[in-house]
Protein backbone atom coordinates (compact mmCIF):
# COMPACT_ATOMS: atom_id res chain seq x y z
CA UNK A 1 0.00 0.00 0.00
CA UNK A 2 2.72 2.42 0.96
CA UNK A 3 4.81 3.81 -1.87
CA UNK A 4 7.88 2.35 -0.32
CA UNK A 5 6.50 -1.17 -0.76
CA UNK A 6 6.16 -1.09 -4.52
CA UNK A 7 9.86 -0.94 -5.26
CA UNK A 8 10.27 -4.47 -6.56
CA UNK A 9 6.86 -4.65 -8.22
CA UNK A 10 6.69 -4.46 -12.02
CA UNK A 11 5.63 -1.13 -13.43
CA UNK A 12 1.83 -0.93 -13.13
CA UNK A 13 -0.18 -0.44 -16.31
CA UNK A 14 -2.17 2.50 -14.92
CA UNK A 15 -0.29 5.41 -13.39
CA UNK A 16 -0.64 5.69 -9.61
CA UNK A 17 -2.58 8.93 -9.68
CA UNK A 18 -5.34 7.38 -11.75
CA UNK A 19 -6.01 4.79 -9.10
CA UNK A 20 -6.81 7.50 -6.58
CA UNK A 21 -9.74 8.76 -8.67
CA UNK A 22 -13.12 7.75 -7.27
CA UNK A 23 -16.61 8.08 -8.76
CA UNK A 24 -17.43 11.01 -6.47
CA UNK A 25 -14.44 12.93 -7.83
CA UNK A 26 -15.76 12.57 -11.37
CA UNK A 27 -19.26 13.62 -10.25
CA UNK A 28 -17.96 16.75 -8.53
CA UNK A 29 -15.88 17.67 -11.57
CA UNK A 30 -18.83 17.17 -13.95
CA UNK A 31 -21.03 19.30 -11.71
CA UNK A 32 -18.45 22.09 -11.56
CA UNK A 33 -18.08 22.09 -15.34
CA UNK A 34 -21.81 21.97 -16.08
CA UNK A 35 -22.78 24.43 -13.35
CA UNK A 36 -22.60 27.75 -15.29
CA UNK A 37 -24.57 26.22 -18.15
CA UNK A 38 -27.63 26.08 -15.92
CA UNK A 39 -26.90 28.83 -13.41
CA UNK A 40 -27.77 32.50 -13.80
CA UNK A 41 -24.92 35.03 -14.12
CA UNK A 42 -25.38 35.96 -10.45
CA UNK A 43 -25.01 32.34 -9.39
CA UNK A 44 -22.16 31.83 -11.81
CA UNK A 45 -20.02 34.76 -10.67
CA UNK A 46 -21.16 36.03 -7.27
CA UNK A 47 -21.58 32.57 -5.83
CA UNK A 48 -19.57 30.22 -8.07
CA UNK A 49 -16.47 32.12 -9.11
CA UNK A 50 -16.26 34.00 -5.82
CA UNK A 51 -16.31 30.75 -3.84
CA UNK A 52 -13.55 29.41 -6.08
CA UNK A 53 -11.10 32.27 -5.72
CA UNK A 54 -11.81 32.89 -2.04
CA UNK A 55 -11.17 29.16 -1.69
CA UNK A 56 -7.83 29.59 -3.44
CA UNK A 57 -6.76 32.36 -1.03
CA UNK A 58 -7.95 30.29 1.94
CA UNK A 59 -6.13 27.29 0.45
CA UNK A 60 -2.87 29.19 0.86
CA UNK A 61 -3.67 29.52 4.56
CA UNK A 62 -4.60 25.83 4.77
CA UNK A 63 -1.21 24.96 3.27
CA UNK A 64 0.64 27.06 5.84
CA UNK A 65 -1.48 26.13 8.84
CA UNK A 66 -2.38 22.53 8.03
CA UNK A 67 0.99 21.32 6.77
CA UNK A 68 3.31 23.90 8.30
CA UNK A 69 1.56 24.60 11.60
CA UNK A 70 1.82 28.34 10.92
CA UNK A 71 -1.41 30.30 11.16
CA UNK A 72 -0.78 33.41 9.08
CA UNK A 73 -3.38 36.15 9.00
CA UNK A 74 -1.71 38.04 6.18
CA UNK A 75 -2.73 35.80 3.27
CA UNK A 76 -5.47 38.24 2.20
CA UNK A 77 -2.88 40.99 2.42
CA UNK A 78 -0.61 39.06 0.05
CA UNK A 79 -3.57 38.59 -2.32
CA UNK A 80 -4.26 42.34 -2.03
CA UNK A 81 -0.64 43.17 -2.84
CA UNK A 82 -1.00 41.22 -6.08
CA UNK A 83 -4.23 43.10 -6.84
CA UNK A 84 -2.64 46.46 -6.07
CA UNK A 85 0.41 45.71 -8.18
CA UNK A 86 -1.63 44.72 -11.21
CA UNK A 87 -3.43 48.06 -10.86
CA UNK A 88 -0.21 50.03 -10.37
CA UNK A 89 1.72 48.43 -13.24
CA UNK A 90 -1.26 47.78 -15.50
CA UNK A 91 -4.06 50.10 -16.53
CA UNK A 92 -6.90 51.54 -14.47
CA UNK A 93 -9.31 54.44 -14.80
CA UNK A 94 -8.71 56.34 -11.56
CA UNK A 95 -4.96 56.77 -11.13
CA UNK A 96 -2.97 55.57 -14.16
CA UNK A 97 0.75 55.06 -13.52
CA UNK A 98 2.67 52.63 -15.71
CA UNK A 99 -0.06 51.46 -18.04
CA UNK A 100 1.69 48.24 -18.96
CA UNK A 101 -0.27 45.52 -20.75
CA UNK A 102 -1.58 42.72 -18.56
CA UNK A 103 0.86 40.13 -19.87
CA UNK A 104 3.63 42.22 -18.33
CA UNK A 105 1.78 43.50 -15.25
CA UNK A 106 0.50 40.11 -14.11
CA UNK A 107 3.89 38.35 -13.74
CA UNK A 108 5.34 41.41 -11.99
CA UNK A 109 2.37 41.50 -9.61
CA UNK A 110 2.75 37.82 -8.80
CA UNK A 111 6.49 38.12 -8.26
CA UNK A 112 6.16 41.14 -5.96
CA UNK A 113 3.35 39.56 -3.93
CA UNK A 114 5.32 36.33 -3.56
CA UNK A 115 8.39 38.29 -2.49
CA UNK A 116 6.22 40.14 0.02
CA UNK A 117 4.97 36.80 1.38
CA UNK A 118 8.56 35.56 1.63
CA UNK A 119 9.45 38.64 3.63
CA UNK A 120 6.51 37.98 5.96
CA UNK A 121 7.87 34.46 6.33
CA UNK A 122 11.34 35.72 7.22
CA UNK A 123 9.86 38.05 9.82
CA UNK A 124 7.44 35.57 11.35
CA UNK A 125 9.16 32.17 11.32
CA UNK A 126 11.00 32.77 14.55
CA UNK A 127 7.68 33.14 16.32
CA UNK A 128 5.22 30.39 17.12
CA UNK A 129 1.52 29.90 17.83
CA UNK A 130 -0.32 32.99 19.01
CA UNK A 131 2.70 35.20 18.26
CA UNK A 132 2.67 34.19 14.59
CA UNK A 133 -1.01 35.15 14.47
CA UNK A 134 -0.28 38.48 16.12
CA UNK A 135 2.70 39.44 14.01
CA UNK A 136 1.01 38.54 10.71
CA UNK A 137 -2.11 40.43 11.76
CA UNK A 138 0.08 43.43 12.59
CA UNK A 139 1.65 43.24 9.13
CA UNK A 140 -1.81 43.11 7.55
CA UNK A 141 -3.02 46.13 9.53
CA UNK A 142 0.15 48.06 8.69
CA UNK A 143 -0.30 47.29 4.99
CA UNK A 144 -3.90 48.53 5.18
CA UNK A 145 -2.93 51.88 6.69
CA UNK A 146 0.01 52.24 4.36
CA UNK A 147 -2.22 51.77 1.30
CA UNK A 148 -4.84 54.09 2.73
CA UNK A 149 -2.44 56.93 3.49
CA UNK A 150 -0.22 56.71 0.43
CA UNK A 151 -1.61 58.75 -2.45
CA UNK A 152 1.34 58.88 -4.83
CA UNK A 153 1.34 55.18 -5.62
CA UNK A 154 -1.68 53.60 -3.98
CA UNK A 155 -4.14 56.46 -4.47
CA UNK A 156 -5.16 56.57 -0.81
CA UNK A 157 -8.50 55.45 0.51
CA UNK A 158 -10.24 55.35 -2.86
CA UNK A 159 -7.70 52.96 -4.40
CA UNK A 160 -8.09 51.93 -8.02
CA UNK A 161 -11.15 51.25 -10.16
CA UNK A 162 -11.67 50.31 -13.78
CA UNK A 163 -9.11 47.52 -13.87
CA UNK A 164 -9.44 45.68 -17.17
CA UNK A 165 -9.84 41.93 -17.06
CA UNK A 166 -7.71 39.68 -19.21
CA UNK A 167 -8.61 39.41 -22.89
CA UNK A 168 -7.38 36.85 -25.34
CA UNK A 169 -8.53 34.03 -27.59
CA UNK A 170 -11.24 36.42 -28.74
CA UNK A 171 -12.86 36.47 -25.34
CA UNK A 172 -13.57 38.89 -22.55
CA UNK A 173 -12.57 36.83 -19.54
CA UNK A 174 -14.57 39.06 -17.23
CA UNK A 175 -17.86 37.90 -18.78
CA UNK A 176 -19.66 35.56 -16.35
CA UNK A 177 -19.02 32.21 -17.99
CA UNK A 178 -15.38 32.73 -19.01
CA UNK A 179 -14.62 34.24 -15.61
CA UNK A 180 -16.14 31.24 -13.90
CA UNK A 181 -14.12 28.79 -15.98
CA UNK A 182 -10.95 30.79 -15.44
CA UNK A 183 -11.58 30.69 -11.68
CA UNK A 184 -12.34 26.98 -11.87
CA UNK A 185 -9.10 26.30 -13.74
CA UNK A 186 -7.06 28.30 -11.22
CA UNK A 187 -8.79 26.61 -8.29
CA UNK A 188 -8.34 23.13 -9.74
CA UNK A 189 -4.68 23.70 -10.53
CA UNK A 190 -3.96 25.19 -7.09
CA UNK A 191 -5.80 22.34 -5.42
CA UNK A 192 -3.96 19.67 -7.39
CA UNK A 193 -0.64 21.42 -6.82
CA UNK A 194 -1.18 21.42 -3.06
CA UNK A 195 -2.33 17.79 -3.07
CA UNK A 196 0.79 16.83 -5.01
CA UNK A 197 3.08 18.99 -2.90
CA UNK A 198 1.78 17.47 0.33
CA UNK A 199 3.38 14.18 -0.68
CA UNK A 200 6.55 15.63 -2.13
CA UNK A 201 9.77 15.61 -0.15
CA UNK A 202 9.18 19.26 0.71
CA UNK A 203 5.62 18.56 1.87
CA UNK A 204 6.75 15.65 4.00
CA UNK A 205 9.53 17.63 5.65
CA UNK A 206 7.15 20.54 6.26
CA UNK A 207 4.66 18.28 8.04
CA UNK A 208 7.44 16.63 10.02
CA UNK A 209 8.65 20.09 11.07
CA UNK A 210 5.11 20.92 12.16
CA UNK A 211 5.08 17.78 14.32
CA UNK A 212 8.56 18.07 15.81
CA UNK A 213 10.74 20.96 14.71
CA UNK A 214 13.49 20.19 17.22
CA UNK A 215 13.90 16.66 15.92
CA UNK A 216 13.98 17.82 12.30
CA UNK A 217 16.70 20.32 13.18
CA UNK A 218 18.65 17.46 14.76
CA UNK A 219 18.21 15.45 11.55
CA UNK A 220 19.97 18.09 9.49
CA UNK A 221 17.04 20.23 8.29
CA UNK A 222 17.22 24.01 8.31
CA UNK A 223 13.79 24.31 9.87
CA UNK A 224 13.37 28.08 9.47
CA UNK A 225 14.37 28.00 5.82
CA UNK A 226 11.72 25.35 5.13
CA UNK A 227 9.14 27.54 6.82
CA UNK A 228 10.14 30.57 4.76
CA UNK A 229 9.86 28.54 1.56
CA UNK A 230 6.39 27.44 2.69
CA UNK A 231 5.42 31.10 3.05
CA UNK A 232 6.68 31.74 -0.48
CA UNK A 233 4.66 28.84 -1.91
CA UNK A 234 1.54 29.94 -0.05
CA UNK A 235 2.19 33.51 -1.18
CA UNK A 236 2.25 32.43 -4.81
CA UNK A 237 -1.13 30.73 -4.41
CA UNK A 238 -2.63 33.70 -2.57
CA UNK A 239 -1.30 36.11 -5.20
CA UNK A 240 -3.01 34.25 -8.02
CA UNK A 241 -6.25 34.14 -6.04
CA UNK A 242 -5.86 37.87 -5.41
CA UNK A 243 -5.77 38.63 -9.14
CA UNK A 244 -9.13 36.92 -9.63
CA UNK A 245 -10.44 38.77 -6.60
CA UNK A 246 -9.75 42.22 -8.08
CA UNK A 247 -10.74 41.22 -11.60
CA UNK A 248 -14.21 40.25 -10.48
CA UNK A 249 -15.07 43.82 -9.47
CA UNK A 250 -12.40 45.60 -11.48
CA UNK A 251 -11.34 47.50 -8.37
CA UNK A 252 -8.90 47.31 -5.49
CA UNK A 253 -8.85 49.61 -2.46
CA UNK A 254 -7.76 49.55 1.18
CA UNK A 255 -11.12 47.91 1.86
CA UNK A 256 -9.86 44.85 -0.04
CA UNK A 257 -7.19 44.26 2.62
CA UNK A 258 -9.07 45.66 5.60
CA UNK A 259 -9.28 43.60 8.75
CA UNK A 260 -12.70 42.25 7.71
CA UNK A 261 -11.54 40.40 4.56
CA UNK A 262 -8.37 39.34 6.41
CA UNK A 263 -10.46 37.62 9.08
CA UNK A 264 -12.88 36.25 6.44
CA UNK A 265 -10.06 34.12 5.01
CA UNK A 266 -9.31 32.65 8.42
CA UNK A 267 -13.02 31.98 8.96
CA UNK A 268 -13.34 30.27 5.57
CA UNK A 269 -10.32 28.05 6.13
CA UNK A 270 -11.29 27.08 9.66
CA UNK A 271 -14.97 26.45 8.85
CA UNK A 272 -13.99 24.22 5.95
CA UNK A 273 -11.17 22.46 7.76
CA UNK A 274 -7.39 22.75 7.73
CA UNK A 275 -6.62 19.06 7.34
CA UNK A 276 -7.18 18.66 3.62
CA UNK A 277 -6.92 21.10 0.68
CA UNK A 278 -10.60 20.59 -0.15
CA UNK A 279 -11.58 22.17 3.19
CA UNK A 280 -11.04 25.83 2.21
CA UNK A 281 -13.28 25.39 -0.85
CA UNK A 282 -16.09 23.89 1.20
CA UNK A 283 -15.67 26.73 3.67
CA UNK A 284 -15.73 29.30 0.89
CA UNK A 285 -18.99 27.97 -0.59
CA UNK A 286 -20.70 28.08 2.80
CA UNK A 287 -19.29 31.54 3.54
CA UNK A 288 -20.31 33.04 0.20
CA UNK A 289 -23.80 31.53 0.39
CA UNK A 290 -24.31 32.95 3.85
CA UNK A 291 -22.88 36.33 2.94
CA UNK A 292 -25.36 36.59 0.05
CA UNK A 293 -28.45 35.10 1.64
CA UNK A 294 -28.18 35.84 5.33
CA UNK A 295 -29.56 39.25 4.41
CA UNK A 296 -32.87 37.59 3.62
CA UNK A 297 -33.01 36.16 7.12
CA UNK A 298 -31.37 38.83 9.26
CA UNK A 299 -30.32 42.44 8.82
CA UNK A 300 -27.01 42.92 6.97
CA UNK A 301 -25.28 44.33 10.07
CA UNK A 302 -25.93 41.05 11.84
CA UNK A 303 -24.00 39.04 9.28
CA UNK A 304 -20.78 39.15 11.29
CA UNK A 305 -22.64 37.98 14.37
CA UNK A 306 -24.09 35.08 12.46
CA UNK A 307 -20.83 34.04 10.85
CA UNK A 308 -19.11 34.44 14.22
CA UNK A 309 -21.62 32.12 15.88
CA UNK A 310 -21.28 29.53 13.13
CA UNK A 311 -17.49 29.81 13.39
CA UNK A 312 -17.69 29.20 17.13
CA UNK A 313 -20.13 26.32 16.77
CA UNK A 314 -17.99 24.54 14.19
CA UNK A 315 -14.74 25.07 16.08
CA UNK A 316 -16.30 23.82 19.31
CA UNK A 317 -18.01 20.78 17.80
CA UNK A 318 -15.29 19.87 15.30
CA UNK A 319 -11.83 21.48 15.44
CA UNK A 320 -11.27 20.17 11.92
CA UNK A 321 -14.16 22.14 10.48
CA UNK A 322 -16.86 20.74 8.23
CA UNK A 323 -14.37 18.19 6.90
CA UNK A 324 -13.94 16.92 10.43
CA UNK A 325 -17.70 16.66 10.87
CA UNK A 326 -17.92 14.71 7.64
CA UNK A 327 -15.16 12.33 8.74
CA UNK A 328 -16.78 11.92 12.13
CA UNK A 329 -20.07 10.99 10.50
CA UNK A 330 -18.55 8.58 8.01
CA UNK A 331 -16.48 6.93 10.74
CA UNK A 332 -19.66 6.41 12.75
CA UNK A 333 -21.32 4.85 9.72
CA UNK A 334 -18.35 2.60 9.10
CA UNK A 335 -18.13 1.60 12.75
CA UNK A 336 -21.79 0.63 12.59
CA UNK A 337 -21.07 -1.36 9.44
CA UNK A 338 -18.08 -3.51 8.63
CA UNK A 339 -14.75 -2.09 9.68
CA UNK A 340 -14.04 1.07 11.60
CA UNK A 341 -11.09 2.13 9.50
CA UNK A 342 -9.26 4.67 11.59
CA UNK A 343 -8.49 7.88 9.76
CA UNK A 344 -4.78 8.46 10.31
CA UNK A 345 -3.98 12.01 11.22
CA UNK A 346 -0.72 12.34 9.37
CA UNK A 347 -0.73 14.32 6.15
CA UNK A 348 -4.28 13.22 5.36
CA UNK A 349 -3.22 9.65 5.02
CA UNK A 350 -1.29 10.97 2.18
CA UNK A 351 2.42 10.74 2.09
CA UNK A 352 2.73 7.06 2.63
CA UNK A 353 0.21 6.04 0.03
CA UNK A 354 1.53 7.43 -3.18
CA UNK A 355 3.56 5.33 -5.49
CA UNK A 356 6.60 7.54 -5.64
CA UNK A 357 6.30 8.13 -9.33
Amino acid sequence: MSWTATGAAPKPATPAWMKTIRPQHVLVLLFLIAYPLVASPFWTVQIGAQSLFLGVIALSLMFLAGYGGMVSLSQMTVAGVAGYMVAVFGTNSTHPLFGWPLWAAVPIAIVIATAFATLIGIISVRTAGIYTIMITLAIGVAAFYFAQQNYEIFNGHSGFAGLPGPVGFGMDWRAPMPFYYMSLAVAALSYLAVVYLARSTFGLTLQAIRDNARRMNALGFNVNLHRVVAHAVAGLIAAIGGLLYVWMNGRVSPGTIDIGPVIDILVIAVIGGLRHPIGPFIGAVLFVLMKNFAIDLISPERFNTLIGLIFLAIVLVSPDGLLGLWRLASDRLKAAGLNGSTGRQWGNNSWRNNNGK
Partner: protein
Amino acid sequence: MAEALRLNRAGAAHALVLEGVSRTFGALVALDKVDLTVGAGERRGILGANGAGKTTLFNAITGDFPSTAGRIRFFGEDVTKLAPFERIRRGMRRTYQNSMLFRGLSVLDNLYLACRGVSAGRFSFIRPRQDDAALESARDLAHAVHLDGVAESLVSDLSHGQQRQLEIGMALSGAPRLILFDEPAAGLSPAERRDLVQILSALPRHISFVIIEHDLDVALRVVDRVTVMHNGAVFKHGTPAEIQDDPDVQRIYLGGKHG
Protein backbone atom coordinates in the same frame (compact mmCIF):
# COMPACT_ATOMS: atom_id res chain seq x y z
CA MET B 1 42.81 23.81 1.03
CA ALA B 2 42.42 26.52 3.67
CA GLU B 3 39.70 24.45 5.25
CA ALA B 4 41.95 21.40 5.44
CA LEU B 5 44.76 23.43 7.01
CA ARG B 6 42.44 24.92 9.57
CA LEU B 7 41.11 21.50 10.46
CA ASN B 8 44.57 20.05 10.82
CA ARG B 9 45.50 22.55 13.44
CA ALA B 10 44.11 22.35 16.99
CA GLY B 11 43.46 18.69 17.55
CA ALA B 12 41.84 17.38 14.42
CA ALA B 13 42.82 13.98 15.80
CA HIS B 14 40.05 14.36 18.34
CA ALA B 15 36.42 13.77 17.47
CA LEU B 16 35.21 16.01 20.22
CA VAL B 17 36.86 18.52 22.53
CA LEU B 18 34.83 20.32 25.19
CA GLU B 19 36.47 23.15 27.14
CA GLY B 20 34.63 24.57 30.14
CA VAL B 21 31.20 23.85 28.72
CA SER B 22 28.35 25.00 30.95
CA ARG B 23 24.59 25.14 30.65
CA THR B 24 22.26 26.89 33.04
CA PHE B 25 18.46 26.79 33.21
CA GLY B 26 17.63 29.95 35.11
CA ALA B 27 19.37 29.56 38.45
CA LEU B 28 20.01 25.84 37.93
CA VAL B 29 23.52 24.96 36.77
CA ALA B 30 22.77 21.75 34.85
CA LEU B 31 26.25 21.57 33.33
CA ASP B 32 29.23 23.00 35.17
CA LYS B 33 32.46 23.73 33.22
CA VAL B 34 32.79 20.32 31.64
CA ASP B 35 36.10 19.41 29.96
CA LEU B 36 35.89 16.32 27.81
CA THR B 37 38.00 14.91 24.98
CA VAL B 38 36.88 12.02 22.82
CA GLY B 39 39.48 10.70 20.39
CA ALA B 40 38.70 9.81 16.80
CA GLY B 41 37.37 6.27 16.75
CA GLU B 42 37.05 6.18 20.53
CA ARG B 43 33.98 4.73 22.27
CA ARG B 44 33.18 6.51 25.50
CA GLY B 45 30.71 5.61 28.21
CA ILE B 46 29.03 8.20 30.43
CA LEU B 47 27.81 7.17 33.85
CA GLY B 48 26.01 9.21 36.46
CA ALA B 49 22.92 9.22 38.62
CA ASN B 50 19.63 10.64 37.38
CA GLY B 51 19.85 14.40 37.09
CA ALA B 52 23.65 14.36 36.87
CA GLY B 53 23.47 16.32 33.60
CA LYS B 54 24.23 13.57 31.08
CA THR B 55 21.38 14.39 28.69
CA THR B 56 22.10 18.11 29.11
CA LEU B 57 25.67 17.38 28.04
CA PHE B 58 24.37 15.76 24.83
CA ASN B 59 22.02 18.67 24.24
CA ALA B 60 24.93 21.08 24.53
CA ILE B 61 27.09 19.04 22.16
CA THR B 62 24.40 18.87 19.45
CA GLY B 63 23.08 22.37 20.12
CA ASP B 64 19.54 21.21 20.95
CA PHE B 65 19.95 23.33 24.07
CA PRO B 66 23.11 25.32 23.33
CA SER B 67 25.82 25.71 25.94
CA THR B 68 25.80 29.00 27.85
CA ALA B 69 29.59 29.04 28.28
CA GLY B 70 32.66 27.21 27.00
CA ARG B 71 33.83 25.93 23.65
CA ILE B 72 32.98 22.82 21.63
CA ARG B 73 35.21 21.56 18.84
CA PHE B 74 34.18 18.81 16.49
CA PHE B 75 37.08 17.27 14.56
CA GLY B 76 39.02 20.46 15.14
CA GLU B 77 36.28 22.81 14.04
CA ASP B 78 34.67 25.19 16.52
CA VAL B 79 30.94 24.38 16.38
CA THR B 80 29.90 26.18 19.57
CA LYS B 81 27.77 28.73 17.74
CA LEU B 82 26.38 26.46 15.02
CA ALA B 83 22.72 25.45 14.83
CA PRO B 84 21.98 21.74 15.40
CA PHE B 85 21.33 21.07 11.69
CA GLU B 86 24.77 22.42 10.81
CA ARG B 87 26.46 20.16 13.35
CA ILE B 88 24.45 17.19 12.07
CA ARG B 89 25.51 17.89 8.49
CA ARG B 90 29.14 17.77 9.67
CA GLY B 91 28.69 14.18 10.83
CA MET B 92 27.34 14.44 14.36
CA ARG B 93 24.38 12.16 15.24
CA ARG B 94 22.37 11.40 18.32
CA THR B 95 19.55 9.35 19.75
CA TYR B 96 17.08 10.57 22.34
CA GLN B 97 16.38 9.16 25.76
CA ASN B 98 12.65 9.80 25.33
CA SER B 99 11.29 8.83 21.97
CA MET B 100 11.43 11.64 19.40
CA LEU B 101 10.15 9.58 16.47
CA PHE B 102 7.44 10.54 13.98
CA ARG B 103 4.78 8.20 15.29
CA GLY B 104 2.33 8.78 12.45
CA LEU B 105 4.89 7.73 9.83
CA SER B 106 6.23 4.33 8.89
CA VAL B 107 9.64 3.06 9.94
CA LEU B 108 10.92 3.57 6.43
CA ASP B 109 9.58 7.13 6.23
CA ASN B 110 11.33 8.01 9.49
CA LEU B 111 14.57 6.61 8.13
CA TYR B 112 13.99 8.43 4.85
CA LEU B 113 13.75 11.73 6.72
CA ALA B 114 17.00 10.97 8.54
CA CYS B 115 18.76 10.16 5.25
CA ARG B 116 17.26 13.16 3.45
CA GLY B 117 18.34 15.51 6.25
CA VAL B 118 22.01 14.79 5.61
CA SER B 119 21.86 14.75 1.81
CA ALA B 120 20.91 17.15 -0.97
CA GLY B 121 17.33 17.46 -2.24
CA ARG B 122 15.75 18.53 1.02
CA PHE B 123 13.64 21.09 -0.82
CA SER B 124 12.57 18.85 -3.66
CA PHE B 125 9.05 19.72 -4.82
CA ILE B 126 8.64 16.35 -6.48
CA ARG B 127 7.77 13.09 -4.87
CA PRO B 128 10.65 10.76 -4.07
CA ARG B 129 11.19 8.09 -6.69
CA GLN B 130 11.65 4.44 -5.89
CA ASP B 131 15.32 4.69 -6.85
CA ASP B 132 15.88 7.82 -4.77
CA ALA B 133 19.29 7.40 -3.13
CA ALA B 134 17.97 8.51 0.26
CA LEU B 135 15.17 5.96 0.03
CA GLU B 136 17.63 3.21 -0.80
CA SER B 137 19.83 4.22 2.15
CA ALA B 138 16.72 4.14 4.33
CA ARG B 139 16.08 0.53 3.29
CA ASP B 140 19.69 -0.38 4.06
CA LEU B 141 19.37 1.20 7.51
CA ALA B 142 16.16 -0.70 8.24
CA HIS B 143 18.15 -3.84 7.55
CA ALA B 144 21.15 -2.71 9.63
CA VAL B 145 19.02 -2.25 12.76
CA HIS B 146 17.04 -5.47 12.18
CA LEU B 147 13.79 -3.74 11.28
CA ASP B 148 13.29 -4.87 7.66
CA GLY B 149 10.34 -6.99 8.74
CA VAL B 150 8.41 -3.98 10.01
CA ALA B 151 9.72 -1.35 7.57
CA GLU B 152 6.19 -0.52 6.41
CA SER B 153 4.64 -0.43 9.87
CA LEU B 154 3.69 2.80 11.58
CA VAL B 155 6.00 3.73 14.42
CA SER B 156 3.04 3.83 16.79
CA ASP B 157 2.53 0.10 16.11
CA LEU B 158 6.12 -0.82 17.07
CA SER B 159 7.21 -2.31 20.38
CA HIS B 160 9.30 -0.19 22.71
CA GLY B 161 12.41 -2.14 21.78
CA GLN B 162 11.80 -1.69 18.06
CA GLN B 163 11.38 2.06 18.57
CA ARG B 164 14.78 2.19 20.29
CA GLN B 165 16.28 0.29 17.37
CA LEU B 166 14.72 2.79 14.97
CA GLU B 167 16.26 5.66 16.97
CA ILE B 168 19.64 4.04 16.42
CA GLY B 169 18.93 3.49 12.74
CA MET B 170 18.15 7.18 12.28
CA ALA B 171 21.44 8.07 13.96
CA LEU B 172 23.31 5.96 11.39
CA SER B 173 22.09 7.97 8.39
CA GLY B 174 24.60 9.38 5.93
CA ALA B 175 28.21 9.30 7.05
CA PRO B 176 28.25 9.64 10.84
CA ARG B 177 31.57 10.47 12.47
CA LEU B 178 30.40 10.74 16.07
CA ILE B 179 27.18 9.33 17.54
CA LEU B 180 25.72 10.18 20.92
CA PHE B 181 23.53 7.39 22.34
CA ASP B 182 21.28 8.47 25.19
CA GLU B 183 20.38 5.39 27.26
CA PRO B 184 19.63 3.15 24.28
CA ALA B 185 19.14 0.08 26.49
CA ALA B 186 16.57 1.61 28.83
CA GLY B 187 13.49 -0.57 29.08
CA LEU B 188 14.85 -3.33 26.82
CA SER B 189 14.48 -7.04 27.52
CA PRO B 190 17.66 -9.13 27.93
CA ALA B 191 17.27 -10.46 24.37
CA GLU B 192 16.86 -6.93 23.00
CA ARG B 193 19.95 -5.86 24.95
CA ARG B 194 21.99 -8.57 23.28
CA ASP B 195 20.67 -7.32 19.95
CA LEU B 196 21.70 -3.80 20.88
CA VAL B 197 25.21 -4.83 21.90
CA GLN B 198 25.52 -6.63 18.60
CA ILE B 199 24.43 -3.55 16.62
CA LEU B 200 26.83 -1.30 18.55
CA SER B 201 29.74 -3.73 18.21
CA ALA B 202 29.12 -4.00 14.48
CA LEU B 203 29.59 -0.25 13.93
CA PRO B 204 32.62 0.52 11.74
CA ARG B 205 35.64 1.21 13.90
CA HIS B 206 36.19 4.72 12.51
CA ILE B 207 32.89 5.91 14.00
CA SER B 208 33.34 7.41 17.45
CA PHE B 209 30.52 7.22 19.91
CA VAL B 210 29.53 8.34 23.36
CA ILE B 211 26.97 6.25 25.17
CA ILE B 212 25.01 7.06 28.30
CA GLU B 213 24.19 3.72 29.87
CA HIS B 214 23.23 2.64 33.37
CA ASP B 215 23.49 -1.03 32.48
CA LEU B 216 27.16 -1.85 33.04
CA ASP B 217 26.77 -5.14 31.20
CA VAL B 218 25.98 -3.17 28.06
CA ALA B 219 28.21 -0.16 28.65
CA LEU B 220 31.37 -1.94 29.68
CA ARG B 221 31.18 -4.34 26.79
CA VAL B 222 31.29 -1.67 24.10
CA VAL B 223 33.31 1.25 25.51
CA ASP B 224 37.04 1.99 25.76
CA ARG B 225 36.84 4.60 28.49
CA VAL B 226 34.28 5.84 30.98
CA THR B 227 33.46 9.32 32.26
CA VAL B 228 31.47 9.63 35.46
CA MET B 229 29.34 12.74 35.96
CA HIS B 230 28.03 14.12 39.22
CA ASN B 231 25.97 17.28 39.78
CA GLY B 232 26.59 18.60 36.29
CA ALA B 233 30.38 18.23 36.48
CA VAL B 234 32.86 15.57 35.43
CA PHE B 235 33.63 13.47 38.48
CA LYS B 236 36.16 11.03 37.08
CA HIS B 237 37.59 9.58 33.87
CA GLY B 238 39.02 6.06 33.62
CA THR B 239 39.03 2.67 32.00
CA PRO B 240 35.99 0.48 32.69
CA ALA B 241 37.98 -1.61 35.16
CA GLU B 242 39.24 1.43 37.08
CA ILE B 243 35.78 2.95 37.27
CA GLN B 244 34.16 -0.27 38.41
CA ASP B 245 36.60 -0.63 41.30
CA ASP B 246 36.75 3.04 42.27
CA PRO B 247 35.41 3.51 45.80
CA ASP B 248 34.36 7.15 45.16
CA VAL B 249 32.35 6.10 42.17
CA GLN B 250 30.83 3.25 44.17
CA ARG B 251 29.80 5.79 46.76
CA ILE B 252 28.20 8.44 44.54
CA TYR B 253 26.75 6.27 41.86
CA LEU B 254 26.84 2.51 42.13
CA GLY B 255 26.51 2.50 45.90
CA GLY B 256 23.82 5.11 45.81
CA LYS B 257 21.89 3.09 43.31
CA HIS B 258 21.94 -0.10 45.31
CA GLY B 259 21.57 1.51 48.70
